[in-house]
């Protein structure tokens, strides 16, 4: 983890409020592992005042190329609006890489990558890592409509992957008509295989819930990367918690080893990657 600054190399508008921000910082790149994220200082700083917005914002690292790392983001509020205005050369405060990382698949396992919208970035990171290791993988990526196809950029930029990549839209305007989990299940049916699978997923809560449910019923191990409201990214604000399913629904033995402190897990340090069956995939309705 580094508390440092990075320089904007590019901030590409991909349409529909989705942008690709490319930042240069060698140290951050050196420590990246698929699933990790950075806290970016996106606000405007005026002497004598805190930046506005004040808190840094968390973003997954999508890809590392040399000493440049990429962040794919969607404009949803004040912080991301500030990001969209960043010009080449601008210096940005960065803390990271933070959090744990996805567990690599065991030898012989096929990785199934499921990414929805701006949840696709960690899947790009996984695909890069898996490809570098010549591991077997397939990706199912979904957005609501072709207008959001900018979210696919990390995969679009690797045409050689095309046979592994399955795109889907909710409205059917591009690729598979339906959501990513449906796309995956349809593909399973069309191309049955006996290879062991391991699922990796990132996207809206509703998608992660579907992933966890399907993976459980198929008895496939699944890891999900969650997005909670983060204040610090390093375990000091205790703001980013997600509910520990072993605490609320665990077995008697599970519970006997736990204290009330263990009900809520900090997503920034214990996560953002969790076993899909280990946490309650619910956000009180305030996040997506």
């Amino acid at each position, binding site marked *: *983890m580094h*508390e440092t600054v990075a320089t904007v190399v590019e901030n590409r508008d991909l349409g529909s409020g989705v942008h690709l921000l490319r930042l240069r910082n060698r140290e951050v790149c050196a420590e990246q592992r698929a699933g990790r994220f950075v806290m970016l*200082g996106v606000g405007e700083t005026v002497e004598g*005042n*805190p*930046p*506005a*917005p*004040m*808190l*840094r914002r968390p973003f997954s690292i999508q890809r590392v190329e040399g000493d440049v790392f990429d962040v794919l983001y969607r404009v949803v509020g004040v912080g991301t609006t500030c990001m969209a205005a960043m010009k080449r050369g601008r210096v940005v*405060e960065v*803390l990271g890489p933070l959090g744990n990382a996805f567990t690599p698949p065991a030898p012989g396992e096929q990785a199934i990558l499921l990414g929805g919208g701006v949840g696709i970035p960690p899947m790009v990171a996984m695909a890069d890592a898996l490809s570098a290791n010549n591991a077997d993988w397939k990706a199912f990526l979904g957005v609501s409509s072709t207008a959001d196809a900018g979210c696919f950029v990390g995969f679009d930029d690797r045409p050689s992957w095309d046979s592994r990549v399955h795109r889907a839209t909710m409205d059917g305007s591009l690729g598979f008509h339906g959501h990513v989990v449906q796309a995956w299940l349809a593909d399973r049916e069309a191309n049955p295989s006996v290879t062991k699978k391991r699922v990796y997923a990132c996207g809206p809560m509703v998608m992660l819930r579907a992933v966890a449910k399907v993976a459980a019923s198929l008895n496939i191990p699944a890891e999900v990367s969650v997005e*909670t*409201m983060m*204040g*610090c990214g*390093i*375990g*000091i*604000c*205790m*703001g*980013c*918690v*997600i*509910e520990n399913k072993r605490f609320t629904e665990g077995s008697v033995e599970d519970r006997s080893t736990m*204290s*009330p*402190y263990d*009900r*809520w897990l900090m997503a920034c*340090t214990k996560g953002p990657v969790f076993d899909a069956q280990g946490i309650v995939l619910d*956000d*009180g*309705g*305030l*996040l997506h």
Partner: protein
Amino acid sequence: MSTRWSDPIAPEDVDISVDVAGLVMKNPVSLASGTAGYGPELSHAMDMSTLGGFVTKGIAVTPWEGNAPPRIAETSAGMLNAIGLQNVGLRAFLEHKTPYLRDLRASGVRVIVNVIGKTVDEYHRVAKGLRDCDAIDALELNISCPNIKEGGIAFGTDCVAAGEVTAATVEGSDKPVWVKLSPNVSDISSMGLACEENGAAALSVINTLVGLSIDLESRRPRLSIGKGGLSGPAIKPVALRMTDEVSRACSIPVVGMGGIWTATDALEFMVCGASAVQIGTANFVNPRTAEQVVQGMRQWCAERGVAKISDLVGTLQRK
């Protein structure tokens, strides 16, 4: 001290140590409770040995769950939190958290344990449990626990209750007991006096202001439990005012906090009567804030020929 400054001196010649009721700190800056975990978390981002002191997340006699998320929300120049004092509890604290704190203390950083409870007895029991613990220098009582609904007393807004909980903790402890005051009161000075009379060694001023933030589209509070505590630069004027009031009304030292972002902010608290300061919310935004504030304070004093930083305490000029 007069209003005029002297000739500059070398930064290394400035004595930035302070004395808070007999506890000598190598500089005035501590990390505030609940904003720096139990210590190790921040050590990856900053050099912890540069700190004057470190205040732990509040510790209760048993572990607490804390609240459901969302627990934090941003506001103009501030943030609301309702963590709900999730904490590992006394036993796990002693077992798992004190080893790091012992090392930290050995590096010259004062370690203060923030104490929470739902009853007077719970405070007393934490104090007793921390007796003889050589990893810590002092206790800080958080008497503004948001647990009134669970049958606790409003310690933070009632002088008698604040005095009682102070007395019981002092009685149980072998360490100096600081009391951290709530700003959500009509008269913070009488709260401070009640604690002083009951044996408090110092007063921490201030905890968060109770606030509410809502999401208009869903017409729901942004925090799961509704209200939360407001911190950050937005509250600095209120915190400075209360630091000034309490330090003039009471004769025990005041530790000031609320919105400190820069060395200038920290020095303002000292001029308004704080013997030392704590930094909270700023740690989230820049985990190296405290380190930079310490350096900035030293530099500021050097440039103005202030040879001893504690000479600034309470030197606000009045007309």
